[in-house]
């Protein structure tokens, strides 16, 4: 093998190694980004469940109010029908129109049950209206919790490891304190 060929092979190897190093670092960085986003998704997931819990509670509170108040019932049905028609016009689909109409009705129902919400972070996580919580029980308002969760999410995106649900709840409580 001539020296020229050897040097050429060595140079080629160096280039390959440099490329491999760059690629490895890029992949590592991508995985790090993914990991951070995965950590932040924990906060999103918690927020999502809290939101669902809140909507469910609002719905529970809105339906009795709707039954008691005929005017509200009529307005809700009008909104549902309007949503149905609008949805039908927009989508030209019966099911799509129905979904749009029901969504509008549900929104109306939830709106009637709207309140200031508190979160109880115990063995079970509960989202309850503030007026239902006795003064002896310490609770966190949902808005404050959301703010705190936003901070936690930023920390996760910065690289912090949030851990399991207990760790997250503990961190949220510390922030509230």
């Amino acid at each position, binding site marked *: 093998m001539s020296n020229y060929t050897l040097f050429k092979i*060595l140079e080629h190897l160096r280039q390959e190694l440099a490329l491999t190093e760059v690629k490895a670092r890029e992949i590592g960085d991508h995985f790090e980004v993914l990991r951070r986003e995965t950590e932040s998704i924990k906060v999103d997931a918690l927020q999502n469940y809290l939101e669902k819990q809140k909507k469910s509670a609002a719905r529970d509170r809105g339906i009795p109010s709707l039954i008691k108040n005929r005017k509200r019932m009529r307005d809700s049905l009008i909104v549902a029908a309007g949503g149905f028609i609008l949805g039908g016009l927009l989508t030209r689909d019966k099911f799509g129109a129905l979904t749009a109409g029901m969504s509008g009705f549900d929104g109306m129902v939830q709106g009637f049950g709207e309140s200031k919400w508190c979160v109880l972070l115990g063995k079970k996580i509960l989202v309850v209206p503030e007026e239902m919580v006795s003064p002896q029980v310490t609770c966190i308002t949902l808005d404050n919790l959301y703010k705190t969760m936003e901070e936690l999410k930023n920390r996760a995106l910065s690289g912090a490891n949030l851990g399991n649900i207990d760790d997250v709840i503990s961190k949220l409580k510390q922030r509230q304190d």
Partner: protein
Amino acid sequence: MNEITRTKRLEVAHYYLLGYTYREIEEETGISHGSIANIVSEIENSALNIPGTSFDQINDLRQLSSDLKKSGLKPSQTLLGITFLQRLQSFQITPEHLEAWSELIKKLLPPDFPVNEFFESARRLHDLETSQDKSFETITEEYKSNCQRIEKLKGEADSLNEAKSQLSNEIKPLSSQLETLKQEKVRLENDVQIQSAKAQELKSRLKEAEAKGVRDLVREKSILNGEIKELEKKKGILLGEIDNSISSTSQRIKAITQEATSQIQEQVTSIRNQFDSLLVDAVNTGVAVGEMRQMVKKGEDSEKGLGNFIREVRDRFEVK
């Protein structure tokens, strides 16, 4: 008695032992009868010692001498007889068989029988049997058969003699031819002599030519020796030139080798540096790959953690 000397007395004793009577001793020695008796008395009483004879043998010797004298025999003849008797005993013929043996000999051998020839013939016959390792009968049979063969051969010889005489008659013309051939041979021998002389002459000429050739060769050899010396001189010069050329070539080779060695060293150093650099790059790449693997592992762990987290969150919430 005292007047008789010892020598005289021993002489008397000698004759006494030979069996001589007193009278005979007296005649031989001249000593008186009485003195002789006294001397004999001394011998018998062992007063006179006879050298070479013991006392107990004296009577036996006297008796033996008397018997021999009576038989008319001398001691030398007795010795001969004893020798003969010993010979006969060696042939297993003892004295008691002696008479019978003598009679047998007389019967076998008449007075005019040629004893010497007989024994010589017997001996030869014995030698013949021993040498041939055959019995007399076998030899006799062979002799007879040989005689018959001889007779037969004689007949053949006669017929051959006849043939010989016939051939002799035939030889005569051949002899004349032989004579002619002999003359021819003489003539040829003369020719050969002439040719030999010519050959001798040629040989001498050849020798001269050889001598001349040798001289020419010697001259050429001297010329060639001169040329060889000249060539050796040239060879010495050429060897010197070759040595110089070899030394300069070896110096050039050495210089080229040194230069090549330094170039190889430089290249080796360069290759080593390249390899070192490559090694550093490989290490860095390995570190990067390791870090990437750690990141991947963390990502995987985070994914699993997210799944668990969502399950835990779901368990914590009582969604209606």
